[in-house]
């Protein structure tokens, strides 16, 4: 009898906990859904009004009637984030491999602490740092300076997701690989990459998302070009989040619309990136 009661109690607790957890998980997504919903709604309106030329023209003047476009920001964002991603991801991946393979080494621990502490530098301070080194040295703001700042900001993200991916490999596989006499590099190539590729790729994409979506490091480094599409890697350029930030805070209705359209495009790009990633890499069966 009491055993039955005990079972009931267990069941009750179980149900309670599950509901609580699901509610919490749902609560977490509520803001996301709200954000996506409102930006999509407003953004589509803007895009319908602006048409295809939104991707190909220069931003409007405050007094313009037609919305113009965000071409310089699109070009700038794509180039600077791609460069930044390749720098950040390669350094982070090598370091992640090192620290997961040799976890007990003093140097690994230092590297780990350093990488994770990078996120503690306010991204604006990263911008200030790049400004007072690269920008002042080059005597102009530039795409390169922006990319350098972004790569510093992206590195800790890439590192965290890469280590977490490499560590999610069950110890059994590691041991199996080693017992087959594989070298660590071979094990990485043939075993670890295969098992952890989903996490690795999602880490790569999240890093890309972080990089393409960050404003503060670009504020003093990349410039804000609105009257030319592209002037060269060593010349000022523009970026989507920067454009959103500056236009959203201006008093002009037309800039608010452009900012909303840009935000929508940024969001769609990010979601598409994740979709592609998940479509390419199907769930790994263990």
């Amino acid at each position: 009898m009491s055993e039955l009661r005990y079972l009931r109690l267990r069941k009750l607790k179980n149900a309670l906990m599950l509901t609580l957890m699901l509610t919490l998980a749902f609560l977490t997504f509520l803001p996301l859904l709200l954000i996506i919903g409102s930006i999509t709604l407003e953004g589509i309106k803007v895009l319908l009004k602006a048409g295809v030329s939104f991707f190909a023209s220069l931003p409007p003047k405050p007094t313009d009637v037609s919305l113009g476009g965000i071409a310089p920001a699109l070009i700038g964002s794509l180039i600077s984030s791609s460069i930044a991603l390749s720098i950040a991801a390669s350094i982070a991946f090598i370091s992640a491999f090192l620290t997961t393979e040799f976890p007990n080494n003093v140097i690994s621990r230092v590297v780990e602490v350093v990488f994770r502490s990078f996120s503690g530098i306010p991204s604006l301070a990263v911008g200030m740092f790049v400004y007072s080194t690269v920008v002042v040295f080059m005597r102009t703001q530039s795409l390169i300076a922006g990319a350098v700042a972004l790569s510093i900001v992206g590195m800790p993200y890439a590192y965290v997701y890469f280590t977490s991916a490499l560590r999610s490999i069950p110890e059994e596989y590691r041991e199996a690989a080693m017992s087959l006499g594989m070298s660590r590099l071979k094990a990485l190539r043939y075993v670890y990459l295969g098992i952890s590729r989903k996490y690795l790729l999602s880490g790569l994409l999240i890093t890309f998302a972080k990089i393409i979506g960050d404003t503060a490091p670009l504020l003093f480094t990349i410039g804000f070009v609105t009257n030319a599409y592209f002037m060269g890697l060593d010349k000022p350029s523009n970026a989507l989040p920067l454009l959103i930030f500056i236009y959203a805070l201006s008093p002009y209705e037309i800039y608010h619309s452009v900012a909303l359209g840009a935000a929508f495009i940024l969001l769609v790009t990010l979601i598409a990136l994740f979709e592609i990633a998940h479509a390419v890499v199907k769930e790994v069966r263990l």
Partner: protein
Amino acid sequence: MFFKSKPDKILFISLLPFSLTSLALIVYIALTLGWEAREAFLRFGVKLFTENVWRVSEIPEYESYGLLSPLVGSIYVSITSVLIALPLSISLAFTSAEFLPKNLSKIVSHLTDVMGGVPTVIYGLWGSLFLAPVLRDVFMIPLNRYLWFIPLFSCTPLTGHSILTASVVLAVASVPYMTSLVREGLAMIPFKYKEALYSIGAMRYEYFKVLTGMLKPYIVAATLLGFSRVLGETTIVALTIGNSLKISLCVFEPGSTIPSLIANQFESAGLYKYALPTLFAGSLVLLLICLTLTYVGIQITYKWRESML
């Protein structure tokens, strides 16, 4: 240094230069920040962190700065936001990694990824334009009306831009990161424990209880790491916290953090002699706090990981 074999050693050494670039970079950044901050340290000394003033003047002798309020604010906001984010992250990690059926769990981890990818500007603008007034009307005002005797809720909310709003938005934005940390911990618990648990007929509740029990040190570490990540966030806080230099326990009051102070003051700090060095000093201190916290957090993870093996 002990290596199992010679190839190991060669591999380690050949990987080292790449990893050490990060070390070199952080040292260089710290030195640059310290160099730019030197005038503030020389002029104000310890007072820079024990006083709460922000008095600018074109005449350098009249300038006076103390970072106490943003320093306290940084820590306060980070604690609140981590406290909000932690239960969310734990439940998210468990639901997505252990409880949900495969295809649902895919969608959840999918959404988490998207959440991690949403730019901070968008979170910030959303928090400032949408969340702040809503939180004020449906949450802060009632709480203040009925629970005013609790110091946390004792002040009348005016604009909605407050420590609470900033913490909530920060928490939402940091959930993906913390979730990935918890998930990392979960993945490191050997299968045999999980199998054993199910084989003795443990319900999900008990399963959760046992696993979180095992994870406890790891969760503490994740909290520290999440804390240090939140500490440096700029855009979100600057847009939602209200940016006032008051020091208050009440979460409905506007406040400031070091990054938000930098964001607010950087634009014209260059006009004064000591303002910019003070801002650099602030970010240097932030960096040092982060290094310490991260170090402790990582030590805990290492200890825990060893105990798992």
